[in-house]
């Protein structure tokens, strides 16, 4: 299972709404940040699903952009490999 963090940018007025939407995810820890208005999401998912997760973040109403801040996939290294 990979661990990644994302910075999810939004507007000040949408911050609470985006936080509420993302907080429903079981795979994420969401930390709001006031200035600039954004949220940090720490995700625990198989690495192959992370791009889909990122697309889901981007598709969330009120989200302006998403940037990856951190990725660690060491737990997966025993079983998979670079494809």
């Amino acid at each position, binding site marked *: 299972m990979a661990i990644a963090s994302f910075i999810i940018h939004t507007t000040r007025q949408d911050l609470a709404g985006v936080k509420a939407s993302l907080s429903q995810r079981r795979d994420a820890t969401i930390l709001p940040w006031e200035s600039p208005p954004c949220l*940090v999401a720490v995700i625990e998912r198989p690495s192959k699903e992370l791009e889909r997760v990122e697309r889901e973040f981007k598709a969330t109403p009120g989200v302006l952009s998403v940037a*990856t*801040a951190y*990725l660690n996939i060491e737990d997966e290294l*025993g079983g998979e490999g670079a494809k």
Partner: protein
Amino acid sequence: MGCTRREFIKYSAAMAALTFLGYGCGRKEAEATPDTWVKGVCRFCGTGCGVMVGVRNGKVAMVKGDPNNHNKGMLCLKGALLASVINSPDRLTTPLIRKGGTLVKATWEEALDLTATRFKQTLEQFGPKAVAYYGSGQALTEESYLANKIFKAGLKSNNVDGNPRLCMASAVGGYVSTFGKDEPMGSYEDMDSANCFFIIGSNTSECHPILFRRLAARKQSDPSVKIIVVDPRLTNTARIADLHLPVVPGTDLALMNAMAHVIFNEELDDSKFHGKYVSFKAMVDGKPVEKSLEDYRTFLADYTPEKAAAICSVPAESIVQAAKLFANSSATMSLWCMGLNQRIQGVWANNLVHNLHLITGKICKPGSTSFSLTGQPNACGGVRDTGSLAHLLPGGRLIANQEHRNQMEEIWGLPKDSLNPAPGLFTTAMFAALGDTVRAMLVLCTNPAQSLPNVKKYTANLKKSTKFLAIIEAFADAETLKYADVVFPAAFWCEREGVYGSGERRYCLIEKAVASPGEARPSVNILLDLATRMGVDPKLIPFKNSADIWEEWREISAKSAYNFKGMTRERLRKTSGLLWPCPTEDHPGTKIRYSRGDDPMVPADHPDKYFFYGNPNGRANVWLRPHKPAAELPDAEYPFILTTGRVIDQWHTGTMTNKVPEIRKAFPAAFVEVNQEDAKRLGIANGDNVRLDTRRGSLVLSARVGEVCRPGLVFAPFYDAQKLVNELTVDAVDEASKQPEFKICAVRVSKA
């Protein structure tokens, strides 16, 4: 915070994002607002991330990324937790002198007098060759410059070396033999425009996490960007690769020659570029000899992808694919680190990376560059640039070159031909001679009793009663202190002011933020005091502080290709660093060297766009370097290869990172990675104790079983002072760079 490793990684993930947003990380004080913020540079790797140090009540309370530096406010967790390191209760606060076998508290007078007396006695009895200085890529530039000058100009001893010999001497040798001058021609900014990354012998994700984040962001922003990773381990870095080549360790020269073979065969070379800007060379009977393009192609004919595939144990198709990706990209950036440098063919391996760029013309353009990554924060600026190695003088000059010696004699105000013309002892030779021909040594800011290869051989000398060892150190638990006769407590990181030069030629000022604990003093003050007591000519050391030393070094640089005269102290104070060359106070610094219009050292009216001014003919050298095996290959008795390295959480010998409770808890003990096929055959399960035997020693480590290591390879990190992995490694060195081959030795693996 007590946490499992998994929780630690989650914490790291959150902190990576939060530091980007300006969150500062401290200890209990983290909730408090600092009184002041002071600009500086991270104390760990050679990335040289800018930091802002939050000071409250005279203590470092938190650390966050500098948004104006290249890291744009980002820090990895190690950097963000520096407050725990500087505030550690394990700091040295008084001088120590060994009495009756034990280090006991002493006054500064006693410690300084004893050290100066022993050095003077040694000089009188045995001459300059019997004294030595062993420095560090973690010392400030001013400290390294001063120590170098004291020993080479003041004491006439060229026994000045340092731990960069262990980590980047081969990169120096590669740059100098190819381009005539050391240091990369590009900058980190090239990552933002490269379309292909060729990463060889670097686990960037763990050793340079902020650069890896930038690289990953580039890939994320443009999926057409290709990443090639050459590494026998399936690291986090290899995980994001489009093409991973898990070569047998020590075979990458064959790989890169085969890539060059493919590039010519497929007509992917840039004949306009290499016809105008490149010379071809080979070593014949120990001397460089001019060769032609035809000679080079004839040489490469022996390196078909199929032949290289058999040597490297990767598919021939992958080698062809790597060559095509490299050459077809509009901008290719190579990155490498210890995987190439810590080898007996280290300089040659560096040359072959440069070759690929030179034959394809992918060099000295945005995104096209041949870029050596650096392990320590000031190995480049502090040791390489100031010439603080046994064969160098400041500004890229060589001791063996009389003209260079005469230049420095004039600059330093010495009589002509007074500098010692013989290069001094390089690192392993210096420690091999300790207690014999070297009788008195000063060590600054490094931990050789843990970091030297085949370390038991050298600690035997450190124990000799015929040696005198003085150490300037910040932490009481550094392994080397066990062998010290005198210990001076040093100011650490932002407790004193000075310059760090990162891997991209960026010089950045660390400003003093807090006072040192107890009686600890800045190393510059300690060196000046010792030099005075040793009787060094006062005219050679007319410095009151590090700013005075910087002024002299800045002036001297103007007489070299490293020209940074435009970097005044005040300018460095106002900026988050500048990249040299930077000849005038209004010059913005240089992102790309050797390129007309970018590099101020290339005359504006030079007829050619590119000018490799380090070489007499203005051309870069493409070297014909054959594949050669490692110093110690697996055999029936020792059938595996052991490779060593770092992990993301810990740094080097752990002296600093083990001060952070979160890190110590998450990553307490060294381990050994074993391939799962090998583990099954040997009856080893995850967590089992595994015995490693080499011709030099034995060690028992906990097993991590998986597919990270290719079959036949095991990996162990060297941060753990309780498990000295360097008791196993070989100390064979590269013939040119004298860098040891930490990365490859033969080992027997068994369940303990």
